[in-house]
């Protein structure tokens, strides 16, 4: 199977993904509550700049501005009938930036959650979820995306639905989850169990991993769990640039470029092959990460203690600290 990641990894050993889309667009004037995806049509030049800045900072992979590009998300902005066009446009903008870059840059089509719960917890059927993702991924592929990059996921069934859609459309896929609740996703998925969620769909994922979540320290703890569970898999980590803080009317993330550089080094030593940033990661941060990875001398696999010492305290419990299934002792249960 066509595996653009593997080809470039063989050359470079480790790949740098890009930084934040949403928070970077804020800096360019996106208003609270506005849909970033609509900017693919109304302000394509700004999306172009966003990608170009990340490429200039050294990104090997750029993610399209299509995170909320399923009909379930776009309907809020009365754009649910423009799913294909908006996603195609998102991919075209990224494609043109990648094609004029002086080196190989991979265009990955960002696919975020629908925001709906699947049956039985919610009203969305698995089939409808697959159809919604398929519609989006068809647009991304038509615009020149090489990979369906399924990200910030919480629910295993939704990951599978998106992966099934990618397989049906004929794009290889990557998936990453947001471990933001006691070391797991909000739906209780643990980092350890992530590789198996859609590990056998189609030809399997090109890579799996973690993105967003809480802070840079917490995501490195999740990364240790994933690389331990699947030492041979290609693992992605795309952590937030510290913690969001509100200054004046804007959100700032607490992470500095040196901190994100150190995060990148630790991520490398923890076994990640694809390293990037999520919310708050600007091109300045990304450039520091590029330099850190280029100059990196491999070190030992970090421990939680090392991570806390160098990046800062964990905000949440790690998955192994939290109880998981071993909950409360029950007296009896009706059968």
């Amino acid at each position: 199977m066509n595996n653009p990641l593997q080809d470039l990894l063989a050359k470079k050993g480790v790949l740098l993904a890009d930084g934040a889309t949403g928070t970077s667009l804020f800096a360019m004037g996106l208003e609270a509550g506005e849909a970033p995806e609509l900017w693919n049509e109304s302000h394509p030049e700004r999306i172009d700049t966003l990608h170009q800045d990340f490429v200039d900072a050294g990104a090997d992979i750029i993610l399209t501005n299509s995170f909320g590009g399923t009909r379930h998300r776009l309907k809020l902005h009365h754009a649910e009938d423009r799913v294909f066009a908006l996603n195609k446009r998102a991919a075209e903008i990224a494609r043109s930036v990648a094609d004029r870059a002086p080196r190989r840059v991979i265009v990955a089509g960002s696919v975020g959650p629908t925001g709906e719960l699947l049956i039985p917890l919610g009203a969305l059927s698995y089939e409808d979820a697959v159809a919604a993702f398929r519609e989006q991924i068809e647009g991304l592929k038509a615009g020149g995306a090489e990979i369906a990059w399924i990200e910030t996921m919480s629910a295993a069934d939704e990951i599978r639905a998106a992966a099934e859609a990618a397989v049906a459309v004929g794009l290889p896929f990557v998936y990453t989850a947001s471990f933001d609740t006691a070391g797991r996703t909000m739906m209780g998925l643990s980092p350890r169990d992530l590789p198996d969620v859609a590990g056998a769909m189609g030809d399997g994922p090109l890579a799996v991993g973690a993105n967003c979540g809480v802070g840079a320290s917490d995501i490195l703890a999740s990364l240790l769990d994933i690389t331990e569970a699947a030492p041979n898999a290609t693992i992605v980590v795309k952590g937030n640039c510290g913690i969001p803080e509100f200054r004046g009317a804007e959100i700032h993330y607490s992470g500095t470029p040196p901190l994100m550089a150190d995060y990148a080094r630790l991520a490398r030593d923890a076994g990640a092959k694809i390293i990037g940033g999520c919310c708050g990661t600007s091109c300045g941060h990304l450039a520091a990460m590029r330099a850190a990875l280029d100059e990196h001398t491999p070190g030992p696999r970090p421990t939680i203690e090392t991570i806390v010492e160098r990046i800062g305290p964990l905000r949440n419990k790690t998955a192994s600290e939290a109880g998981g299934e071993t909950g409360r002792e029950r007296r009896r249960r009706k059968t």
Partner: protein
Amino acid sequence: MSDDEIILSELSDEELVQQMHDDLYDGLKEEIEEATHILLDRGWTPYDVLTKALVEGMRIVGIDFRDGILFVPEVLLSANAMKAGMTILRPLLVETGAPKLGKMVIGTVKGDIHDIGKNLVGMMMEGAGFDVVDLGINNPVENYLDALEREKPDILGMSALLTTTMPYMKVVIDTLKEKGIRDDYIVMVGGAPLNEEFGKAIGADAYCRDAAVAVETAKEFIRRKHNQLAAG
């Protein structure tokens, strides 16, 4: 696990209440409905069924949710079971003039369609005995203002899941300030990308990291409010 089928109607009051706590924990809706009817038939007041069986059961669920033992899927099932019991009790509570903890208006902010966390907070607040008015998703500031005027709640709750929508909470709070009504309400905010510092910076009374914390925080604020009224 037990091989013996438990017959709810054969349990003593105490055992039945314990069993309801277990059944809420396991999200068993029909069992909760049945047990609610049994307690009412035995002459329990609706208020006692609410507080001793449902609220207490959901309190236990809340603790394990807070501690990372239960996650959203389990808590949603528990909350659904609780709601089934509440549906039976609600008209009876009104009839009997049972005391109320307080009222909350809650909604996800403009531009944001996420309602899982918000729904959980609403359900857990109901489970704790609050009246909850849910404005749904994608609420511009006008929706909040209308609801505050109409419902006269004690608490305003706002939710956002996206970094692109969380700043809108400040728009709402600033508007309340402009209108001079900010201090008439306890404003609580929540959502995955938020944190304590953010809550403070935008002028909310509290950031609540999950539904269980939201319930505890709301109770604490209502208690303080009552103390203030008593002192004033």
